[in-house]
């Protein structure tokens, strides 16, 4: 992989130059303490030292609410006129979120390809940025604290400069476009990078064992933990909305007042919702809230492993940070494990 | 005056009301404006609530003037707790109230009154012959809602206006957008004035009225003020509002009635124009002159004309407010921090239908101990009965069928919160003139 160096004083210039590759989106302030990815016009808006945004990047590719196509009584179902997707450059994406996108790429591809997702995804450039974990992060445990693909450029802080890994030819074009801003890396840069890497590894406040979790989940299928969690969970859906790898959606038709034309829509759904596994006639395959909470954990940590060979949790800590009921994925996993030990 | 009356009051009367008229031996015996709306006991129910919960609850007394309730309530809370809000907040609140005024007046004029004068049962029926006029009315109404939504967060029951300020003040872009719409609306409001000037106003309910309205120290016409001015020449500080609104419970109504020195009085657009009309300027002043509202009107049916004038005023004033906000630069400021303390305070606003008072006391934990809300319609009820009586006397020879609608017209002119403004007239005439003592009650 091509690796170059960007002195920090050149960052603003470089980021501004990216606008020729598309609309720049980066983490900006949202409220007093929160952050969100949003369009930026001024480098000063960008929060470089952020930990997490409320929503992951999935909101751009797999929108919270989206029109799929139109319908009318006479013409049936029709795709709207295709507008060329805007080109976007996402600056400052953390490794866990890049992994999250890679997982969504898997889900939305396969035998049936979700064009809505990929039309936008294919017009997105990803510029990653390294980060320091906080008390919610556990991406080291999920193996998602580093990335080697899924970005066009990836910036790692090495004090006075950023070490820049070039992941794609588009990334290379971006570097080329402002070549004078970049420098070659030297020996001490490599050493710094390695040092920083160790520093990051050691700064994790949470460590959990996940490799053998699928088996443990099977063993603990009937654990009383699920019942306890079912009592706490509010079914508010927050965890699914903020999760970079929750991809469930519900489909509904929206009618115009003429009562004959309208749109088929989809919106983010959550397996924590009462209606999620409800079928016509009123049978609910997960009528108990506890079975729904269990499903979320099972799908992430057990089912996804069987399907795709890896858990779908990327350790971003969002569900833990934003759950109003304080349900903590790490604590749940630890509890499941310690029950085994007894 | 009934000394035994308790201090707490029922507030909202909009909804289900009626009129009962009894004529005995060719003479008017009883004229009652009845209110059957189910009581909601807002004031005692809100006792014990924390200071920040009061406005969200009490604004829901009324949907159509919720902006006025919101602002009056917040002002009362702030006055009780000694909170000084910023100039920006004051301007935004006024803008909110002006939005409410535009919406309410447009609704009343185009959906309720004009169809009345032109002999249609509803705006929808009116639209079949006068589509352009109805569309214009709806656009004006929408303009009022757009303002309330942009400033208050929602057209009905604002949630953005809170104690100490606003959750999130509107952006500069939002204000510029409003300005564009208001500029267009001004033209339409002038067209509305033309429309109203063409209406023939009957004079069967003409009689001298006492008018009351808030009076501000400033030079311009305003919907705010610290003093209450009456056409009798009396003035009071708003804190003394009870001296004007002596409320009494009447047997035929779920609403209480107000009397000033034992006499009924009127509040609302016509009262405001009567008392503060000279302060109007710009297009509103021209509109007032055009509609012949220069002298003190004795005909409550002129209230529709007054509303048309005020619609022009509210739009012009909104434009001024926006200009001032833009000039100063709109700040994304947080609401003023609240220091909880015990206290009492009154907030008063000229709502579309007249002066609205909210008066609260709080204990030292910031919990409400007492609330009193006097709505304009409650103040107008006695005057409505007076006008009804005059009308019946003037029209005593008319048949029940032609009398009924005219009496409805009188009630509706007061715009007493829409739902009770319409069709709940029970006309009980003398047995000699009607074989059976029948009554007509719709709803």
């Amino acid at each position, binding site marked *: 992989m091509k690796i170059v160096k960007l002195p920090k004083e050149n960052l603003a210039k470089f980021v501004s130059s990216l606008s020729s590759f598309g609309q720049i989106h980066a983490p900006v302030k949202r409220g007093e303490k929160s952050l969100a990815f949003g369009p930026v016009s001024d480098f000063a808006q960008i929060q470089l030292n952020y930990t997490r945004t409320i929503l992951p990047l999935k909101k751009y590719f797999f929108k919270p609410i989206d029109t799929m196509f139109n319908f009318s009584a006479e013409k049936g179902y029709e795709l709207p006129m295709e507008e060329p997707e805007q080109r976007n450059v996402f600056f400052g994406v953390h490794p866990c979120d890049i992994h999250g996108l890679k997982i969504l790429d898997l889900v939305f591809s396969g035998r049936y390809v979700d064009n809505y997702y990929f039309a936008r995804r294919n017009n997105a450039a990803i510029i990653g940025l390294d980060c320091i974990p906080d008390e919610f992060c556990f991406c080291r445990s999920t193996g998602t604290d580093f990335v080697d693909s899924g970005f066009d450029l990836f910036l790692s802080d090495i004090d006075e400069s950023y070490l820049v890994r070039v992941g794609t030819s588009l990334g290379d074009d971006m570097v080329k476009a402002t070549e004078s801003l970049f420098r070659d890396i030297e020996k001490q840069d490599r050493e710094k990078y390695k040092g920083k890497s160790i520093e990051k590894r050691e700064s994790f406040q949470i460590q959990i064992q996940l490799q053998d979790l699928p088996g443990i989940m099977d063993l603990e299928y009937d654990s009383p933990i699920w019942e306890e969690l079912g009592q706490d969970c509010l079914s508010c859906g927050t965890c699914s909305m903020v999760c970079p790898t929750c991809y469930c959606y519900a489909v509904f038709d929206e009618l115009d007042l003429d009562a004959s034309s309208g749109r088929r829509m989809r919106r983010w759904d959550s397996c924590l919702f009462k209606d999620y596994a409800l079928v016509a006639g009123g049978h609910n395959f997960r009528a108990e*809230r506890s079975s729904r909470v269990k499903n979320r954990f099972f799908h992430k940590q057990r089912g996804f492993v069987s399907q795709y060979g890896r858990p779908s949790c990327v350790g971003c800590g969002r569900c833990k940070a934003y759950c109003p009921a304080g349900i903590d994925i790490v604590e749940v996993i630890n509890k499941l494990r310690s029950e085994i030990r007894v | 005056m009934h000394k035994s009356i308790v201090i707490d009051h029922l507030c909202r009367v909009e909804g289900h009301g009626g009129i009962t008229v009894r004529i005995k031996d060719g003479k008017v015996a009883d004229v009652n404006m009845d209110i059957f709306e189910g009581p909601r006991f807002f004031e*005692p129910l809100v006792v014990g609530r924390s200071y920040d919960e009061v406005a969200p609850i009490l604004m829901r007394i009324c949907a159509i003037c919720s902006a006025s309730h919101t602002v009056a309530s917040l002002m009362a809370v702030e006055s009780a707790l000694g909170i000084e809000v910023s100039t920006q907040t004051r301007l935004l609140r006024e803008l909110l109230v002006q939005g409410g005024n535009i919406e309410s007046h447009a609704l009343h004029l185009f959906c309720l009154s004009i169809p009345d004068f032109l002999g249609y049962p509803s705006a929808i029926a009116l639209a079949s012959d006068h589509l352009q006029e109805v569309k214009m009315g709806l656009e004006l109404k929408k303009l009022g809602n757009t303002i309330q939504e942009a400033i208050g967060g929602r057209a009905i029951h604002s949630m953005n206006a809170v104690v100490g300020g606003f959750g999130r003040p509107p952006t500069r872009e939002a204000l510029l957008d409003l300005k564009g719409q208001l500029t267009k609306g001004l033209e339409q409001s002038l067209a509305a004035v033309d429309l109203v000037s063409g209406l023939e106003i009957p004079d069967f309910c003409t009689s001298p009225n006492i008018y009351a309205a808030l009076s501000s120290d400033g030079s311009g016409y305003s919907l705010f003020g610290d003093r209450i001015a009456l056409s009798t020449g009396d003035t009071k500080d708003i804190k003394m509002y009870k001296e004007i609104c002596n409320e009494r419970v009447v047997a035929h109504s779920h609403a209480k009635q107000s009397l000033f020195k034992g006499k009924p009085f009127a509040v609302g657009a016509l009262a405001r124009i009567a008392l503060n009309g000279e302060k109007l300027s710009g297009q509103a002043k021209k509109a007032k002159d055009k509609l012949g509202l220069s002298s003190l009107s004795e005909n409550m049916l002129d209230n529709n004309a007054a509303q048309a004038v005020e619609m022009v005023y509210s739009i012009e004033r909104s434009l001024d407010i926006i200009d001032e906000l833009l000039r100063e630069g709109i700040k994304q400021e947080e609401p003023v921090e609240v220091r909880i303390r015990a206290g009492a305070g009154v907030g008063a606003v000229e709502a579309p239908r007249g002066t609205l008072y909210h008066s609260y006391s709080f204990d030292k934990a910031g919990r409400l101990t007492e609330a009193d809300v006097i709505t304009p319609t409650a103040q107008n009820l006695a005057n409505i009965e007076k006008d009804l009586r005059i009308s019946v006397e003037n029209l005593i020879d008319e048949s029940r069928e032609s009398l009924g609608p005219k009496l409805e017209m009188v009630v509706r002119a007061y715009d007493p919160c829409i739902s009770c403004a319409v069709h709940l007239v029970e006309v009980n005439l003398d047995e000699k003139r009607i074989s059976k003592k029948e009554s007509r009650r*719709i709803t």
Partner: protein
Amino acid sequence: MGKPKVGIYGLTGCAGDQLAILNCEDELLDIAGALDIKSFPMAMSGGDENCPLDIVFVDGAVVQPKDEELLKRLRERATLLVAIGTCAVWGGLPAMKSEIAREELKRKVYGRAGKIFDTTAPQHLSRFVKVDLSISGCPIEKEQLLQSVASLLHGDLPRLPNYAVCTECKMAEYPCVLLEKGQLCLGPITVAGCKARCPSYGQPCIGCRGPVEEANVSSEVRVLKEKGFTWFDIQNRLRTFAAPADCFEDKIFKEGANA
């Protein structure tokens, strides 16, 4: 298919939901064109008060015998009864609870003269009659209203959100007012549909749309207590808009008080 015959009525409330219909200024004439509005006392005279109706929209709560009579008569006349607004769906503010008994309230407001008025414990419509569709909100959201009218015209019932305000709040990526500002927010147990209006202005959800199905009230109470709110304040907020709802019944309240 002819135009459906429609009635729009109000019981006891602020009439905000009928007003919300009138507030669809851009669509009002289309709505009026698509429906055969037989009666809408708030906005038109001379309605037909006896004809059978295909759909009746009712706002407001039942707080007096008169309301109950009207409601039952409307139910008899109409094929579909649609409750509009939180008052109609959950009792709303007319059913707001406090420690004070209703008779006492009446005495406080009207003095001894209060004796002459008949009132009953305020309840939502479904306590008296079958409700075919509930559109909650204080007031209802225009979008949901239009969506519902479209579906009804199409011959279906609309599918309204059956999840919490939190979900919509997160979808729109508003900062959580509960976690970030420590406000007493009912978003987790309030039914969505307002696009999280209050949090969008940095304000807590006060539950104006009523509870979501299967609202986990005890967990919400626990969460709020952990955030430092007193039971007094939590209780007040819970029983503002939907006091008669089953999930706020006494048992939960006793639990909440003790928890």
